[in-house]
């Protein structure tokens, strides 16, 4: 009997992909919750790594009729000491009912690994970010060129010879232009012909063919085709994101946490658009310094408040490392809004003259304590200043936020507002 042995290892893998996607779609809200929870516990850059999330298996339960309870009979192996009529303690050792404490749990929840894309998709999905920010993003794209079929007009450099000849050939066949071989054949026939009458007929035929050849050109202007090129937007490859934060004593952990969440969203969002995103963390009191993420969010610092110091530091860093011609620059500033009065003018000037002209997007996020009672009372000095700048036409986005739950909506809002203000400015 012949036996077939087949190597299936090279078969396209990922047969389960489709089912996996269906499962994710089905479990979307569960997974999304898990993704959000996971992302809260992570550093900004780790969010994009994808990774393990835990979802309750129960939420994806497939029900069946199951029996339970009642009297049970069982035959077990390994009796060492019991004799007929003995009784075993229910809770004690010896009952098959008792399973290890870990056993039941595996059914309640399971961890599985999401790919980067799956993770970010789910993370961004309920933010509806891409649509909201499209307009802004479109402007950050440079234009590339790509082939886009053929056209009947264009520059001689773009003539497509093969397409032109193809059309000419079709036309020649359709119009029955005599082929070179036919004429040669006829001429040979005339040369070989001895019968005078027939020769006359053949000559007339030759004349007719030659006239036809002249009437129907080999290549007609009608046939000529040019390659067409189209400009297409191409995303620029790199971006830098500046995180500016006031870390003076008035900024509480809660406020920093709000800021962190905002930066995280911005980072994830940018990461989707750019191959390469750099983050620069600048913290400031009355003087500013560039720090790493850990120090930025968790390092203790105290002192007076000079917002201009941070803007100045950012400007310096841009000048040194991030040429605006090559980099898309984004900045998000988080502060509780306190600034020394004397600093207002300098801050305004730095923003208008140095920072805003090189930025794709500048967001100001004013963070307040949870509950935010004092928050609504009066506008802070920084808010008042920025508001004035904005009213005079500076492309600033600004929002106040005091609760974690507001971060997502505020993020939408910032992008949305930017968009509408541009629409106003555009016509």
């Amino acid at each position, binding site marked *: 009997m012949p036996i077939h042995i087949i190597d299936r*290892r090279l078969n396209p893998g990922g047969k*389960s992909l489709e089912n996996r996607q269906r499962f994710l779609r089905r479990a979307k809200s569960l997974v999304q919750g898990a993704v959000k929870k996971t992302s809260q516990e992570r550093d900004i850059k780790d969010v994009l790594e994808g990774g393990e999330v835990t979802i309750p298996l129960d939420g*994806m339960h497939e029900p*069946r*009729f199951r029996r*339970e309870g009642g009297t049970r*009979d069982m035959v077990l192996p390994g009796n060492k000491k019991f004799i007929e009529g003995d009784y075993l303690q229910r809770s004690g050792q*010896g009952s098959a009912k008792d399973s290890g404490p870990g056993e039941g749990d595996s059914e309640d929840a399971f961890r599985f690994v999401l790919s980067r894309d799956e993770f970010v998709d789910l993370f961004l999905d309920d933010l509806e970010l891409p649509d909201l920010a499209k307009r802004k993003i479109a402007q950050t794209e440079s234009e590339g060129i790509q082939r886009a079929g053929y056209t009947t007009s264009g520059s001689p450099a773009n003539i497509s010879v093969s397409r032109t000849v193809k059309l000419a050939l079709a036309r020649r066949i359709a119009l029955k232009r005599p082929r070179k071989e036919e004429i040669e054949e006829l001429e040979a026939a005339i040369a070989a012909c001895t019968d005078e009458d027939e020769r006359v007929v053949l000559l007339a035929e030759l004349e007719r063919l030659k006239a036809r050849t002249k009437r129907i050109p080999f290549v007609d202007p009608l046939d000529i085709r040019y390659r067409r090129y189209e400009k297409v937007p191409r995303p620029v490859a790199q971006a830098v994101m500046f995180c500016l934060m006031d870390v003076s004593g008035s900024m509480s952990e809660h406020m920093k946490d709000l800021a962190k969440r905002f930066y995280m969203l911005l980072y994830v969002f940018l990461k989707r658009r750019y191959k390469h995103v750099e983050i620069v963390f600048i913290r400031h009191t009355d003087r500013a310094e560039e720090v790493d993420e850990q120090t930025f969010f968790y390092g203790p610092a105290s002192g007076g408040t000079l917002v201009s110091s941070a803007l100045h530091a950012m400007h310096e860093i841009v000048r040194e490392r991030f040429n605006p011609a090559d980099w898309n620059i984004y900045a998000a500033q988080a502060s509780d809004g306190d600034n020394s009065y004397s600093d207002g003018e300098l801050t305004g000037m730095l923003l208008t003259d140095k920072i805003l002209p090189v930025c794709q997007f500048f967001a100001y996020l004013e963070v307040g304590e949870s509950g935010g009672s004092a928050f609504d009372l009066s506008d802070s000095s920084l808010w008042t200043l920025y508001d004035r700048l904005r009213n005079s036409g500076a492309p600033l986005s600004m929002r106040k936020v005091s609760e974690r739950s507001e971060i997502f909506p505020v993020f939408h809002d910032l992008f949305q507002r930017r968009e509408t203000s541009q629409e106003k400015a555009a016509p």
Partner: protein
Amino acid sequence: MTERLFEGADWDFHTLQRITDACEEVATKDLGLDVYPNQIEVITAEQMLDAYSSVGMPLFYKHWSFGKHFAFHEASYRKGLMGLAYEIVINSSPCISYLMEENTATMQTLVIAHAAFGHNHFFKNNYLFKQWTDADGILDYLDFAKNYVMTCEERYGRVEVERTLDAAHALMSHGIDRYPGKKKLDLRAEEKRAGRRRQHEEEVFNDLWRTVPKGASKTRSALSIERRRKLLGLPQENLLYFLEKSAPRLAPWQRELLRIVRHIAQYFYPQSQTKVMNEGTATYVHYRIMTKLHQQGRISDGNFLEFLQSHTNVVFQPEFDDPRFSGFNPYALGFAVMQDIERIVTRPEDEDREWFPDIAGKNDVMGVLRDVWANYRDESFIAQFLSPKLMRHFRMFHLHDDPEERAGIRVDAIHDDRGFRRVRRELARQHDVGFIDANIEVVDVDLSGDRRLILHHHVIKGSQLNETDAKRVLQHLADLWTYDVSLIEVDANDKVLREYVVSPRPIPAAA
């Protein structure tokens, strides 16, 4: 000396061919096995996971629950909680065995002997498989099912199809004809029939007829209750079959989907009744083949030791108080009983002559075993062939757990002269699927009234349905039936223990 099949752990496709030929020689000449043609496929670990999650079938329709199982298996596999099976084998003709590429040459030999000859012989010869499955047609049928589901998704939307499949899956374990009588499945003909049905439906569909006024309907009381029940084929324990035939508002494609799920459930039904025997057979066969190959010098001592180690792991039976214990290991139990049969047939003791007069000392081991493999299922196999010697070997005992009994769980019987028959009968009963699954049947439909569907669950030994699950399954059932469904749990004296009533969810307007 005969040439070695391989040296060390490495193998290539020539090695596999040599191994298969050698196994086949032993299987057919020494053991007298009769198998379907074999097809052996080498796959990767990921493909093995794939196969796992679609119940081992190579082509299956798409559904989220397979994705769920994949994610679950994958997670446990990555965490190292679970090893992958060495093989998956499909009851089809040709019989397809999957081998994992990671296996060593010894393991491949073991797997080929186990799956391609052990399981294969069992599939081809056991009466349940002969009765219920169509090995020639299954792959074509699955292909048809896959395409049909896909077409439905295109035509009627994925959500609609998913809703129907979810409901069908929930009822899958109650989509089985348990008793023969109907003719054997012929899946190829089934597929053709499905095609014709669809074509007919399309040809005769005429939207005009929907608007034609209907004549006065017959008075329903004219139909006697008995006649009505008979027309509906009641009582009916195959819930999927009943819905497919009688649910009033299902679209033809939905009926077809129920039919597909039902056919697949039926195809797997023999497997659930023969786990112990099927694995026992395959294990017994691989053990015989490997031993023979070693005797012939075609497998080195080192490789044979490697085999013995895997084999011992496979047939390991933890005792009840061992943390690893999770019931009887079908490999261990099946293999032990078959080896014991071999012993009884060749070297019987007085006890065996008393218990097994028909086979003791008969000397034709393979003849007896082939007969056993062909004509028994787990329940009858254990009831017939579990010997006192084995019960002593496993130190089996029977526990009776009555929640009312305050003293605890009673030891009803142990492996002594008084207990052998009772232990054996009880263990056999635990392997009877008819006894394990809840006994639920459709008993009536209130056609003249609100069209409520009435089901009974016959409660055995006070074991009622899990309430949460029951409600969810009934919800699916009601959605398909499109009228109220009530499930009544009754005990042996027809006393009502509990009643569920579930109304169908409104069907969202088709988009």
